[in-house]
């Protein structure tokens, strides 16, 4: 199994040492609980400034690293801070798992998370026990994220809402249908729904897991509950029903066979 690097950056040396120790325990506790005996994480760099981390990333190729960054890297506000560093890291290591460590409790966590795609925010004012617990949780989340991003890259369907990119596991997708608005599609999943701009034909061509069942509907066949060949109605897990045209009957029969679907 591949080993992933952990990088810690804080302008206070004491804090770096403290986080280093706590992260080390977190790695051990993760290894204890994991099924695999292989090592997953290793602390590769302890830094005190923006430039140290930046230099390291210029010299070494890091993939899917875990970064613990202090937001206030300098007393001087004009200097580059942890947020800037996170943006730089993203360019070098797109799959970076970034965790911010901050002294401010009143931080706009949702906004920073949105801006930097950070995994978590941890306040360092907490006691060691509380901080240890948070670090254990966040490291195991990072491990899961990295594993997912490698194994399931092909299993994800992404769409854009404005500038925001939403990722859905394709197993969760029920269907994609047209809406009264032009070029606006609606995607319905097991746990939610969303809207995006797109074209049914293009989507069908680009995604093998989607089957076109009518002019206005692409379905994920594994989430079809039942196909009624006599009334030509397909029912989905959420209760939605779509009628398919007569000429598609043969195609439906082949779907039923291929996915072992229920018929009436």
């Amino acid at each position, binding site marked *: 199994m591949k080993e992933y690097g952990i990088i810690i950056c804080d302008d206070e040396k004491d804090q770096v040492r403290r986080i280093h120790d706590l992260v080390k325990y977190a790695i051990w506790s993760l290894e204890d609980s994991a099924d695999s005996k292989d090592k997953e994480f290793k602390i590769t760099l302890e830094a005190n400034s923006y430039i140290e981390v930046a230099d390291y990333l210029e010299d070494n190729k890091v993939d899917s690293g875990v970064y613990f960054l202090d937001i206030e890297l300098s007393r001087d506000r004009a200097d580059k801070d942890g947020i800037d560093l996170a943006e730089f890291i993203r360019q070098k290591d797109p799959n970076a798992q970034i965790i911010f460590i901050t002294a401010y409790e009143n931080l*706009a966590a*949702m906004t920073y998370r*949105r801006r930097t795609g950070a995994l978590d925010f941890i306040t360092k004012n907490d006691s060691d026990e509380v901080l240890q617990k948070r670090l254990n949780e966040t490291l195991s989340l990072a491990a899961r994220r990295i594993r997912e991003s490698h194994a399931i890259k092909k299993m994800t369907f992404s769409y854009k809402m404005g500038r925001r990119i939403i990722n859905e596991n394709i197993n969760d997708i029920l269907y994609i249908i047209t809406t009264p*608005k*032009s070029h606006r599609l609606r995607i319905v999943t097991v746990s*939610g729904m969303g809207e995006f701009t797109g074209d049914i034909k293009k989507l069908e061509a680009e995604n093998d897991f989607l089957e076109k069942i009518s002019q206005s509907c692409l379905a994920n066949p594994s989430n079809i509950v039942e196909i009624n060949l006599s009334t030509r109605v397909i029912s989905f897990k959420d209760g939605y029903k779509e009628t398919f045209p007569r000429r598609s009957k043969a195609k439906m029969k082949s779907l039923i066979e291929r996915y072992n679907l229920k018929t009436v």
Partner: protein
Amino acid sequence: MTNIVDIYNRYNIIIYAVGLFISVACDYLFFYLITPINRSKKQNILFIIVTFPIVFLYSGAGDLGGFCAELFEVLVFYIVYKRGKRDYQVLGRILILLLYSYLSFEIEFLLSQIISQYISTLPIDTIVINILEYYILMKTDIIKNLDDEDGKTFFYLIVYLLVSFAGIYYLTSYLFDVDRVLNLILVAVISIQLIFSLYIYNSSKKIRQDKLSLQQIKDLKTYTQQLESSQRGLRKFKHDYQNMLLSLKLSAKKSHDKELIDKLAEYSSKILEDKVLWQFNDVDNVKDELLKSLFISKLNRIFQDNIQYSFECRDVIDSLSNKYNAFDIIRILGITYDNAIEESLELGNEARIDTMVYRENGELEIEIKNRCRNTDLTIQDMRKSGFTTKKNHDGLGLANIEELSQPYNDIFINYQIKDGWFTFLMVMSI
């Protein structure tokens, strides 16, 4: 000669029967189109099989028969399809259909008086009248009026119009022998009355609604100003207090009071850093009056209900784009907050509602998320119109949000239920 009259009469009867059949069938059809039906398909078919022949035969049996058929129709439809003990919404629908049939009677009568006696020998007028009726029922707000909060008033208006129409019709046909001119005048007067009263009803309703929403804006504005000024006062107090405390601490550094002062400092920093006091800070960045009022009123309610919350808006939001009707946006967010608050109250201590307003490159994102109970309810259940977990609730749900966002091509909405959180995300241009 006799032969031709004979053929003509026979032909006339068939035409009459066909016309009658069409109008009775249309009555049934329109009723099913405009009424929320709570019976099964089988029950509906049985109902039609049993009642249709009776209505059809009586309608053809002269004026008295027609009257009986109408009475029978109103009663049976109401008894079978009413949803509660008293259902003025269903009764109102039946009466509107009846009113229209009286109206068309009169129009037919007028036409036969003015143009030709034989106009009714062709079923064309029946067809035209029914197409017109379809258009009025389906494309105008006539039926919708019954379902809004002024529905009862509208219902009484319909009853009043119906009684006056039927009264005129039967009085002129049986009790008083009036000549053609007088009859025409009566019909004209009552038709004008119908149009006029509908017009008055609609305009008074509109005036009242406008007044109401104006008042709401005014209230919210006042409230916003008050909150902002008290917020400024609090911030100033915090600043002064902390400075005073600091200087006190310095002066007491070497005396015995140090321990006491430290305790005081710890206590007051805990109180002053308390999130609830300063959480409104970010609302200042929202410069759009309506949007700001909405956030303040909802956050305040959340605060009053002791629900944990956070509000983030780091960028200045000047004003919403003119592309949108601000009220639609406000209502979408209002519904989302109401749902979140409702769920939070069910949840108790765990409850939390987080809001983020985020602007980037001409796009505005509003994310509202709340903790929710683990239920098997899916988004699809909530999308169904009128869904709510509570009884006797207005039933505003996700369906309303979709309806409100429908006219806009660049509003994107996303919902997710995941890991105990319900997340609402709206992306729009600014």
